[in-house]
């Protein structure tokens, strides 16, 4: 199941820029999530966010932007897999 997203912000610059659009596939129970995958997740107080997975420890997925001032797991900690909703396939 596919979903389109428009990116707001530059925390993944230069890989994804503000205003770019990405095609994502929905994460299901068996969908693999690997380090370096770019994922879309729901975070309380922040809404839907997009970041890269930088480490995985059991069910703790640490996500980061490429910008040093990105708001990500360095601020709010690791995500549980259930919080990750989509995985980016490509941008257009």
């Amino acid at each position, binding site marked *: 199941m596919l979903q389109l997203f428009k990116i*707001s912000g530059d925390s993944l610059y230069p890989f994804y820029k503000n205003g770019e659009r990405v095609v994502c596939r929905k994460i299901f129970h068996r969908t693999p999530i690997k380090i370096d995958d770019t994922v879309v997740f729901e975070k309380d107080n922040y809404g*839907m*966010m997009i970041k890269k997975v930088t480490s995985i420890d059991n069910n703790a997925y640490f996500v980061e932007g490429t910008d040093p*001032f990105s708001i990500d797991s360095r601020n709010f900690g690791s995500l549980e897999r259930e919080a990750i909703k989509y995985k980016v396939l490509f941008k257009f």
Partner: protein
Amino acid sequence: MFNLKEVKAHCDVPCGIYDPSAAQIAALSVIRMVDLMDAASNEHDVAYHNDMARYVAVKESEAVKCKEEIRIIWGDFIKPPHLAVNPDIHTVVHNIMMLGGAAKQHASREKAMELLAEVNKFAEIFWKIKGVETKVAKSPYAPNEDVVYPVL
């Protein structure tokens, strides 16, 4: 066929410079102004009124600056994970907001000292979050009161 949703890739303002020392200096300045007001001569001449007006003006602006500096760190730097391990941050910040107002309303050294104490508490929490050790030392200038300093 597809609806386009927005997804956030947000950053903080890219400066990352946060430091409670400006708020601590402002709180010390409030105490200093109260001390100068207390020490002013009792001759209510033009010079007295001039000095007093200046002390009051500086006390007002330093109290406002103190509140503003704390508000910025609290609003921009403090994140939910910090709150989880430092649940009293909101209370400390609210106390600073109220004591900053009291410092403007009154010329009370006691209130000004309470403001400095709360700002020091905030500084201690801030440096703990940053993983920086702190020490308490007297400010090396009047009013020579206790200040929480980072050990760098």
